[in-house]
């Protein structure tokens, strides 16, 4: 690990000011960051602990929830309100990592976790995300846990989160405080940036911006399913995952929000897929068509070709379970 300064501010102003200094990074649970610092894939000059800012509460907000940035994944998954009204979020959290990691990992940290692309984690391999302009060893290399949607000729790294997939299906909004004290919110679609020719820039956060909470609006669908397919039964990243939030009215799909893990450079959602499901009567042909639309333009390598039929089948299975 490279040397760094460590500070633990006790108010937001101090945290954002510290986060604004050159080479600073915030730390919540640290389960991803410390790992990458050991590998010297990340080498912050200043580590700012944000776990004592009082951002660890889950509060009712109208018919929705306001989830503090440092709420631990374990607490969020076990919260009775989340279990009852946002079960897709509990399910996604519980499908991720291990009990020990969920006890440390935070809400904002989960959103900001880095790809598990092995070339990103290996400093001897070319990686545009780690070293802009260095090239991409994954292209033409060994790929499996890589993206097929949202990719560019510079990067095919996968966003590994389960939680964020459920958050996308639930229309979560992120609250951000800037170093001047201004607050702004953004949805996840706006928050994440596609790699294009700048894969090292993953979000629209600016230096010193601190995520303070994630807001969930009232659930728009009561039929919520999260299904994750992985190489082993537990404690593994998704090969493919699907989060669905649906509402049925008179045998038709009145609301459809479907998000995907394991296939995108960011937690994936395709409004075309949602639109073609909405207002329709469930059928095999409808769900097959949704699967075809989803993978239009998929960027498939030899090692990721299996994800196309896999995600289509998991999508169909999840949709049938959701409408049943």
């Amino acid at each position: 690990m490279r040397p760094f300064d460590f500070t633990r501010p006790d108010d937001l102003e101090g945290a954002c000011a510290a986060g604004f200094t050159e080479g600073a990074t915030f730390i919540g649970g640290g389960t991803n960051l410390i790992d990458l610092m050991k590998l010297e894939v990340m080498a912050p000059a200043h580590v700012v602990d944000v776990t004592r800012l009082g951002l660890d509460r889950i509060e009712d907000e109208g018919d929705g929830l306001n989830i503090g940035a440092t709420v631990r994944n374990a607490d969020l998954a076990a919260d009775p309100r989340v279990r009852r009204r946002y079960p897709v979020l509990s399910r996604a959290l519980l499908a991720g990592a291990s009990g020990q990691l969920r006890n440390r990992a935070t809400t904002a940290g989960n959103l900001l976790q880095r790809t598990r692309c092995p070339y990103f984690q290996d400093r001897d391999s070319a990686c545009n995300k780690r070293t802009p302009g260095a090239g991409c060893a994954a292209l033409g290399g060994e790929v499996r846990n890589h993206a097929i949607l949202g990719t560019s000729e510079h990067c095919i790294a996968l966003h590994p989160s389960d939680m964020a997939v459920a958050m996308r299906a639930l229309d979560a909004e992120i609250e951000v405080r800037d170093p001047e004290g201004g607050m702004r919110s953004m949805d996840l679609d706006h928050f994440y940036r596609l790699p294009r020719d700048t894969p090292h820039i993953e979000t629209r956060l600016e230096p010193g911006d601190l995520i303070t909470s994630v807001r969930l609006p009232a659930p728009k669908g009561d039929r919520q399913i999260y299904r994750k397919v992985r190489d082993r039964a537990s404690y593994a990243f998704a090969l493919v995952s699907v989060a669905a939030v649906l509402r049925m009215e008179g045998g038709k799909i009145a609301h459809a929000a479907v998000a995907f893990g394991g296939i995108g450079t960011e937690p994936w959602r395709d409004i075309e897929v949602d639109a073609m499901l909405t207002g329709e009567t469930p059928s095999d042909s409808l769900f097959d068509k949704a699967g075809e639309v989803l993978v239009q333009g998929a960027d498939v390598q030899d090692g990721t070709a299996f994800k196309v039929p896999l995600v289509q089948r998991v999508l169909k299975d999840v949709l049938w379970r959701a409408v049943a």
Partner: protein
Amino acid sequence: MQISFTVNGTRQDMELDPRVTLLDALRDHLGLTGSKKGCDHGQCGACTVLVEGRRVNACLSLAAMHEGEEITTIEGIAQTSPDTAATLQQAMIDYDGMQCGYCTPGQVCSAVGMLSEAREGWPSHVTEDLDAPLELTRDELTERMSGNLCRCGCYPGIVKAIRTASEARTSDSEAA
């Protein structure tokens, strides 16, 4: 930097580089070598300790992040959770829950933390109904322990030992 936390009931004041992980602080600076360094990347669970009663990977945490907190390691767990830990440790011996023993301290600390999570009714990935009272079946137990690997493959004995401890009546308020 100056760092203070409590380990197994004793306050410890240390002068540490910010890079020192909780695991290295315990092992190298306090001489508590029961917590093991396996993968050092949060994948094997051999370093599991309890922080404020909750199981965590000590290798993926900086000592500096634990200022003022209470840490319980395998050396102290029988004192802080006497019923559960003592029963579990004896059951690990009775059921051959180990061969080389390297993962065992992590397995024991993780199981004590896991059983207290179960007592709080936390659901898991394999829980069918998120609202129903939890029954700690074999599937529940193995899912909840998936963060602890045993390269000797002693899982059948480990599972039996934890089931024995979970069935024993407990009054470990610290762990609850």
